[in-house]
């Protein structure tokens, strides 16, 4: 690219595309099409050609439509635009700034206008950039549906954005799931906007209840979560979350539960610190074609309360596309849970479970690992590895539109979850037991679908290869969820 076709000779451009739901996570279409859109807009075939690398300087930035929002946070967002050297830079930066403004969560549509600068202080190659923003109302709300972890739910939301003019917001969410799980959360979000790095502090109280028929209990949680998210490099690739969670959990017995699970019933209090660090270079959340994700999380429970443990988890995903029609993906997850003292308990709700249509395919939800009387007990260590090969649908129906939501995939996945005592010092053989004994493995294929760019639907036919007598196998699996292996 080097030229752009301007509509009129005075170089004023209207790149006010409609920009609802710009947040990449929630967008329907592939992020790569984002770029297409941009180019399409610039390629208005009328008018004269302009050199994009023409030297240009931003003289002024206007932000129109601010009512409640405070100036300082807007300034912090837009200053980087002054660094632009030429016209191409200006356009790119203007887009970045728009994304940042959108990220504040205070505005609806944002339009960008670029014009040559006028007036006494105008420089010869100077331009003025105007952002037309549209502040959200004091209170918004809605009803939507959502899928996650094999369950559909209805969500009622209410949100008061931009409470004090600096992007603070208060939100309330209530969801009721098809499997009678409920979730109420009220959170208050406060972003701290620096020029490059920004932190977001979130405090929320929640009340959830879930049923786990595979383990025979239901769980009711009431708690408080404080989350501080920051990305040091400002690009969104490296992210840290520091969280503190205090939860009152009640494990509720059901009629048919094994006594081993029944023994864990009752209330307990978990008070935990968690650190999550993730490096995400993938190009898409659900059907990435390139890049990898590495995520570590460490959780220490036992600062008060009666639950104490240290939990480490690692998630790795890497993608490789040697040809347009073939994408290889490798996903790996593992975790380790250790107690910290004999006074502090580890509850069944803290254990690791494996199996499910988006987890270790070929096994029922929580279908492998230690179980007793049909109730899965979970283990304190697990690993799971999956290798996928994705191809587009044969004959590419609905290409560039509906058809891109679907992909065929073949996979082989394996893993193990068990209870083992880690002997750090000498017994290498003992420590490696989890990778050698009772490893589960299944191979299969099916169709995967992307749903709202955050959720994934899979319909698979799976053949378990290695399994243990107690495991619950499934040959046809249908799964919906946010996380997948």
């Amino acid at each position, binding site marked *: 690219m080097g030229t752009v076709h301007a509509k009129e000779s005075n170089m004023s451009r209207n790149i006010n595309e409609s920009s609802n739901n710009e947040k990449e996570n929630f967008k329907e279409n592939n992020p790569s099409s984002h770029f297409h859109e941009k180019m399409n807009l610039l390629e208005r075939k009328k008018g004269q050609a302009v050199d994009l690398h023409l030297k240009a300087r931003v003289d002024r930035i206007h932000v129109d439509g601010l009512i409640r929002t405070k100036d300082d946070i807007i300034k912090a967002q837009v200053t980087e635009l002054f660094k632009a050297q030429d016209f191409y830079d200006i356009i790119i930066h203007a887009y970045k700034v728009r994304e940042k403004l959108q990220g504040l969560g205070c505005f609806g549509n944002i339009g960008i206008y670029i014009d040559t600068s006028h007036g006494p202080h105008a420089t010869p190659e100077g331009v003025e950039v105007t952002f037309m923003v549209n502040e959200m109302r004091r209170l918004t709300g809605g009803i939507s549906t959502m899928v996650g972890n094999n369950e559909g739910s209805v969500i009622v939301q209410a949100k008061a954005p931009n409470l004090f003019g600096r992007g603070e917001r208060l939100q309330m969410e209530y969801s009721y799931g098809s499997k009678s799980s409920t979730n109420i959360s009220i959170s208050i979000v406060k972003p701290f906007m620096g020029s490059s790095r920004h932190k977001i502090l979130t405090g929320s109280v929640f009340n959830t209840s879930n049923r786990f028929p595979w383990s025979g209990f239901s769980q009711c949680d009431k708690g408080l979560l404080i989350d501080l998210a920051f990305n040091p490099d400002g690009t969104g690739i490296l992210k840290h979350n520091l969280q503190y969670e205090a939860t*009152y959990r*009640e*494990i*509720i*017995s059901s*009629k048919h539960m094994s*006594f081993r699970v*029944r*023994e864990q*019933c*009752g*209330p*307990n*209090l978990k008070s935990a610190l968690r650190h999550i660090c993730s490096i995400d270079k993938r190009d898409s959340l659900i059907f990435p074609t390139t890049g990898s994700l590495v995520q570590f999380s460490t959780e220490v429970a036992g600062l*008060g*309360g*009666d639950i104490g443990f240290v939990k480490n988890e690692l998630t790795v995903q890497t993608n490789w596309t040697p040809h347009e029609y073939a994408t290889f993906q490798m996903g790996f997850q593992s975790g380790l849970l250790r107690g910290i003292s004999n006074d502090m308990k580890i509850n069944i709700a803290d254990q690791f479970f494996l199996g499910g249509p988006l987890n270790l395919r070929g096994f029922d939800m929580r279908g492998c690992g230690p179980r007793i009387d049909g109730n899965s007990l979970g283990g304190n260590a697990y690993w799971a590895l999956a290798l996928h090969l994705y191809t587009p649908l044969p004959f590419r129906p609905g290409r560039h539109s509906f058809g891109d939501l679907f992909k065929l995939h073949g996979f082989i996945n394996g893993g193990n979850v068990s209870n083992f005592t880690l002997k750090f010092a000498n017994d290498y053989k003992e420590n490696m037991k989890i990778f050698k004994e009772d490893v589960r493995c299944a191979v299969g294929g099916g169709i995967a679908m992307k749903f709202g760019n955050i959720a994934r639907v899979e319909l698979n036919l799976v053949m378990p290869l290695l399994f243990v007598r107690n495991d619950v196998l499934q040959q046809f699996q249908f799964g919906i969820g946010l996380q997948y292996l």
Partner: protein
Amino acid sequence: MPYPLLADSITFELEAQEPWPQLITLYQPYEVEQILLPDNANCLAVQAFLKMCGLDFQIEPRSNAEYMSPSGRVVPFIKCGQFLVSDFDSIVTFIGNKGTSLSDHLSANCKADMRAYMSLVNNIFINAELYICWVDETTLNEVTKIRHGSVYPWPLNHYLNWQKRKEVIKKLNVLGWYNKTIEEVCKEVQNCCTALSERLEGSDYFSGEKTPNELDALVFGHIFTIITTPLPGNKLANIVQSYPLLVHLCKRIETSIFSLQAIGVK
């Protein structure tokens, strides 16, 4: 009181197929620091009943016994092979289905009377005990809250005390006990003791025979616990103490079936 897990004849048949006798494990809250008056009375009644039947059992104290119970917050419960049975009445029925019964030889009329008296004890004593523990302010603050919350970490103990109190009050409200004054509650207990004492008049045990049965076990559980549990005011204990027949019954049962250690010295 409900008959949980035992409603159908199918379960009766299933129970009959299990080998017998089996080891019985009795789950209850911690006696020394946790258990409250009504629960303790029930646990002791079940223990006494099992002893009277000559069945071996093991006591397993658990801080979350109440939540483990198969029928909603009722302690104690027994585990016997595959089966979990909670609540005194259900346990009696369960053991009866296994062929061990203390009241089979009684006449139908006598059995009906006995059931009525068991209802009387179960209702009046338990509700009065719940009232004393959870409604009477001094007992609530000085004993109940401390003991009930003792097994949970701070701030959970306060929350659970509050939650439990709310539940108990709701129950007492439905049964028409919450609006009573402490004097009315004492009056109820007094009437109940009078009735029991009249019934006992002139015989060793309630059935009028030489051997105790489940009614004796139930009365023993409540009377013994009320007498031996120190509470501020000791209102219930004072009432019960004034019925020598009942106190003697307790002593008789205690010496005949319990060695002192088994109950735990209070």
